């Protein structure tokens, strides 16, 4: 009986008697379905027990016997299972190495060869066990790639060379397989060598073995080239490239491997192409590579599109032209193709080559040159114009149709009925970053949710289910989570804020942030819903920027009966901050507000320019006075905590952090607006009349060198697209950082804002130059990025180009005599823009600066060129 078998086996496992267990299982036939299932349950329960014990009593002595039982149970399960069953299980169900070897030795499963390949495929680190079995004859040597990937990992320690020398089979056969396998993740030659000491690197070991004569050099070279031709990922191909370089092939070897090198020039990995081109040079010089054979590979190499490849190709061209001048027409075609890289120095060298060998200005070359026009730099275009007629049609100014004044056309409408409210809720459950829709829905809930229509439960059942699931899932977005918690409370008529379901702790920042403000607001609104208070949202934005007009706010306030106007304090403060314009109140409004005489009515009168007595200690007064004073209030706050101020964490961001913080003594970190898209967008609607504070907070968190972690922060740039937004110093600081960022999205957003703001005439380039200059002094900036990004802005239109030129002039003037490293990049752009615009004038200060430049290279080259233009 199956069950009896388990009853008999269990005491043996409990006793940890391995031999008895094995003896018990030896005579059994393969079909033990019940036994398999019971053993599997036992292994799972022992695993759980072990984890619990390990967590609670890490050093307890009860762990050791449990470990023995656990291993034995796993071994029994392994013995009674067939291959299909083994393959469905996680790897932790496999016994440890020693036990596993005992099992295999005694039972010798017929499927062990297949299992070995399967387990290696799951984790190549099983190589050590499998290789032992192969040596002992328990299984055949696997032929799968994972076996060799495991070998790379297992043998690659500090004694790699010695170990390889002691394994003649590996040296004779296995080692060549590693050239045929690309690998993945941490299992590849490139990954292994990156994270191990020098003495454990395969690259060094192979070079050393080759030098010792233990590995045939010819085969090593041949395999390396074969691997390079397979176009592995650039990271992994790089390893083989480095190996080839370390092997340093002789001219004779290069000649022997010429066909492979020619193929390599067509590789899709630019580093491999660069390597091939590098090896062409000595062969061309020695006459072993003819121009006829060279032309096609060189043309293909230029598809790699990196400066290294292009400069390498141009060097080869020069050498080839010297060796066989009779074939220059073929080389000229390659030189023209080298104009496709938009880099001044490369294009200059290419054109120099063309001009020196193409005296006759043949029609073919002219035609080719004219087709490359869109890619030519202005200075090259000027030179080329002597040969061909430059197409002036490209100078047509593009017309940009930016969304002019979004606020004027997109006034926000209120939700009309319960049906629309449900649609909005459903939408926000999935897309909570639409913060204006969120505000509409909060307003709709306040006005409409208390009148539950007939069939309410039926209509909302699906939404309730979704809200519950979002809360249980603990979604990453705080806005989405709190909104779902609010709705769940509403559907169940039970306040879940503060309950077990409320996981505020997951979203809390270590400092005061807008997440706290948002939480407070939704918590209060939920209670109002449950108390069946019918209140509209005071702070509902009228415009996409989040702004509300003062008279609208007054109307909203007055539309609610005095006795029922039980608005949350956080709601009242938010409404005050969202006021964008302070129109004069009508006499009727003034009278009505005076009649009410409560604190909020007095605040509204104060904001409307009336002289009223206010409670000067309350938070509403603080909000109102900040709104009224704006710039002056920042100075007050600077005085409060000057020690906290750093370059970006200026008074502005400090003030923004204090906006809704419960006390002025709270700690303020950089991420006052949170990190998630939705809360960042919501924070942008808080104080639309004073966005500088928001940009200051944004500038503080942008790290120009990071590319992955700050994925959400590009949303900070969004308000800058609004044509009503004026760009102050903090917005400029944010843009300067964006233009310096390594991250594509940051730089893309910054470029786009600058292009649009220039087109809309709301960006002062001198302010941007000032911000960039200040940034250059604060943090190390890669000026190549500025050159590339400013070039992209300049190519938009002639107007943009002129503005960029002005910016560069001011930026360079502000540097004084100590120019930062890499300024040659900006000088190059300046030179090209001067050529393009014909503006050759130079301010005296800049002229002196350029004349006094000491460093060589690009810096001197372009400063001389600019001075020559002048």
């Amino acid at each position: 009986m199956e069950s009896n078998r388990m009853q008999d086996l269990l005491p043996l496992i409990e006793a940890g008697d391995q031999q008895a267990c094995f003896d018990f299982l030896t005579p059994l036939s393969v079909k033990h379905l019940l036994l398999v299932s019971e053993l599997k349950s036992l292994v799972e329960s022992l695993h759980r027990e072990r984890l619990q014990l390990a967590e609670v009593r890490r050093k307890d002595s009860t762990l050791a016997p449990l470990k023995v039982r656990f291993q034995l149970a796993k071994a029994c399960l392994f013995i009674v299972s067939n291959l299909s069953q083994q393959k469905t299980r996680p790897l932790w169900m496999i016994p440890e190495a020693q036990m596993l070897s005992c099992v295999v030795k005694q039972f010798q499963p017929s499927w062990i060869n297949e299992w070995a390949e399967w387990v290696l495929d799951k984790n190549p680190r099983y190589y050590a066990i499998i290789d032992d079995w192969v040596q002992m004859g328990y299984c055949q040597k696997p032929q799968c790639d994972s076996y060799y990937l495991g070998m790379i990992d297992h043998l690659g320690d500090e004694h790699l060379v010695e170990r390889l020398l002691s394994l003649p089979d590996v040296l004779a056969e296995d080692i060549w397989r590693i050239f045929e396998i690309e690998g993945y993740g941490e299992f590849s030659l490139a990954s292994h060598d990156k994270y191990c000491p020098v003495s454990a690197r395969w690259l060094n070991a192979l070079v050393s073995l080759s030098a010792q004569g233990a590995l045939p050099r010819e085969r090593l070279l041949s395999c390396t080239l074969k691997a390079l031709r397979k176009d592995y990922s650039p990271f992994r191909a790089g390893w083989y490239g480095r190996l080839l370089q370390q092997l340093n092939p002789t001219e004779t070897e290069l000649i022997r491997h010429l066909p492979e090198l020619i193929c390599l020039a067509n590789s899709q990995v630019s580093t491999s192409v660069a390597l091939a081109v590098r090896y062409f040079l000595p062969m061309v010089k020695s006459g072993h590579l003819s121009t006829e054979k060279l032309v096609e590979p060189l043309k293909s190499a230029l598809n790699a599109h990196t400066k290294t490849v292009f400069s390498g190709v141009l060097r080869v061209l020069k050498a080839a032209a010297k060796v066989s001048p009779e074939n220059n027409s073929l080389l000229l075609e390659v030189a023209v193709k080298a104009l496709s890289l938009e880099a001044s120095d490369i294009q200059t060298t290419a054109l120099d080559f063309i001009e020196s060998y193409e005296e006759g200005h043949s029609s073919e070359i002219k035609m080719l040159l004219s087709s490359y026009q869109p890619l030519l730099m202005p200075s090259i275009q000027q030179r080329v114009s002597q040969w061909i007629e430059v197409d002036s049609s490209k100078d047509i100014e593009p017309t940009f149709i930016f969304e002019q004044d979004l606020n004027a056309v997109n006034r926000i409408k209120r939700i009309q009925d319960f049906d629309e409210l449900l649609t909005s809720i459903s939408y926000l459950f999935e897309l909570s970053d639409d913060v204006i829709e969120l505000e509409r829905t909060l307003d709709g809930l306040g006005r409409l949710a208390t009148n539950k229509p007939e069939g309410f439960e039926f209509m909302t059942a699906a939404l309730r289910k979704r809200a519950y699931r979002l809360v249980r899932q603990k979604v990453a977005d705080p806005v989405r989570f709190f909104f779902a918690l609010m709705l769940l409370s509403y559907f169940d008529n039970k306040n879940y804020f503060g309950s077990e379901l409320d996981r505020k702790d997951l979203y809390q920042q270590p400092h005061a942030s807008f997440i706290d403000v948002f939480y407070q607001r939704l918590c209060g609104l939920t209670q109002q819903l449950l108390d069946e208070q019918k209140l509209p949202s005071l702070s509902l934005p009228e415009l996409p920027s989040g702004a509300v007009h003062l008279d609208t706010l007054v109307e909203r306030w007055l539309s609610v009966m005095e006795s029922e106007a039980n608005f949350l304090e956080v709601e009242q403060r938010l409404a005050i901050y969202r006021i964008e314009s302070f129109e004069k109140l009508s006499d009727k409004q003034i009278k009505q507000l005076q009649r009410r005489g409560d604190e909020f009515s007095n605040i509204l009168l104060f904001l409307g320019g009336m002289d009223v007595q206010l409670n000067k200690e309350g938070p509403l007064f603080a909000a109102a006075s900040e709104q009224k004073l704006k710039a002056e209030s920042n100075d007050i706050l600077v005085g409060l905590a000057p020690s906290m101020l750093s370059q970006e964490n200026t008074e502005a961001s400090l003030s923004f952090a204090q906006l809704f913080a419960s006390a002025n003594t709270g700690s303020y970190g950089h991420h006052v607006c949170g990190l998630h898209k939705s809360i960042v967008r919501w924070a942008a609607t808080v104080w639309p009349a004073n966005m500088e504070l928001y940009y200051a907070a944004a500038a503080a968190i942008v790290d120009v060198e990071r590319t992955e972690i700050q994925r959400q922060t590009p949303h900070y740039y969004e308000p800058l697209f609004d044509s009503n937004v004026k760009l102050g110093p903090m917005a400029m600081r944010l843009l300067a950082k964006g233009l310096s960022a390594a991250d594509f999205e940051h730089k893309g957003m910054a470029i786009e804002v600058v292009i649009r703001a220039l087109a809309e005439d709301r960006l002062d380039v001198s302010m941007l130059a000032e911000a960039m200059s200040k940034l250059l002094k604060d943090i190390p900036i890669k000026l190549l990025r500025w050159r590339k990004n400013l070039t992209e802005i300049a190519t938009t239109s002639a107007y943009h180009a002129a503005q960029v030129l002005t910016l560069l002039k001011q930026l360079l003037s502000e540097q004084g005599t100590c120019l930062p490293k890499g300024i040659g990049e900006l000088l190059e752009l300046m030179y090209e823009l001067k050529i393009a615009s014909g503006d050759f004038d130079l301010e005296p200060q800049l002229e002196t600066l350029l004349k006094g430049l000491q460093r060589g290279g690009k810096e001197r080259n372009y400063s001389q060129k600019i001075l020559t233009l002048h």
Partner: protein
Amino acid sequence: MVQIEQHYQYHQHSSLEKARRGLCLNLSSSAELTQSATLFEGDIQHSEVTARSLRVLGDVIESRFYEPAALNNKRAKHADPLATVGHDALRFEGFSSCCSIYARLDIFSQGFKARQLSAGTTHVEFGATVKAALAGVYNHSPLSIMLNSASPQLVTKKKALVHKQISLPLRWIKGLAEVQALQTDLQPIFTLNRFRALKLLRQLPSRASKNSVWLECLDNNVVVHHHPYATGIEFNGAERLQLLKSLIPIAQSVSLFADPKGQLTTWVVDFGSSTFTLVLSAEPARGLSGEGQLLSHLANSNDDLVEQVQQLLNQQQYLATDVLSEQLSVTPEAVKSALTILASRGLVGFDAYQQRFFYRRLPFDRNLVEQVHPRLLEARKLLQSQPIKLVLGEQEVITHIASNDATYQVKLRADEQRCTCQWFAQHQGKRGPCKHILAGQMALREYH
């Protein structure tokens, strides 16, 4: 859900061999899918273009632009491309591992000179060795292609037969059928010469980026916007376009086609006698196989017309809607709709560049294709499991559909459909109707 397991195997590896007249690309095809041993044998006019295009196709198949957590650090097993031999064109097609990219190389009749040709579709073995070998093909080296299920001259007594068994992923089967039909609504956006196209490629991200860019064509120059732009084409996962970087420098032109909803972009690289088409889904995380814009077509198809059009398929290589509409005396729109359904069944392909359908019979059981749409199956189950009550209004039909212990409200209007379920809230109809809307549509059709 119905699972389709499609296996195919080869008897030898593909190879690039030196032949009498240059190089011969011997592509091993799946034996069980072809009736004749040699589907194609002929010379290719532009060796380098073809070799490079095939390598890019191989790159597409190996590429993965979205990695679900479950796949983290695991190697994907790649399927092999499909080859179709027709009298007018030789085609190779395949999907990326993430299924967000579909690529097809069309070599038209002027680009090859066939010595032997037998129409059909099959898988071809295309491994790293062939790809590496193709790197050595330059313009001056003549190239011929042979599509073979067994090549006797290469199988010697000493060499054992190679058996490489591959299982065709289900999403390839779904995607191959779906992507043809999805392209039928595409509109031409712009065509650039190779220099402008190169410039555009350099402005686009080369690394994964979550946010979209918007492409605006002004005077033959494309401006890349990083913020929503009214007249721009939204383009997400732009790093996927870098796959074309080695093709653009040798192209004559590059054209972009996009659908009005911004759910699909198709890039066509034109080499004159051949084209390379790259179809990109709305974002890398969305596989082309999971799109459902065609479900309404499938749920409400005119079966009679579809059958009539199907009967005409064998007679012509290219299928012109106007000619078919004349033959069948129906409107071109009705023919297009029928061809779209046939495309989704794997019976025709669509060439976005030439805006025409072509006959291509996918090598698997086409009757199952319709059954692998889970939403359609679920909708049919919903329809069978409950009486669906329709409330007919002047402008809309409202119905409530119970599913998984909740009831969803479905509103059907002439111009739009809405549902209160999560799927609809997430995608707002951009990825096709949800199962509740489909059930409502089917109920309405039954009512009429």
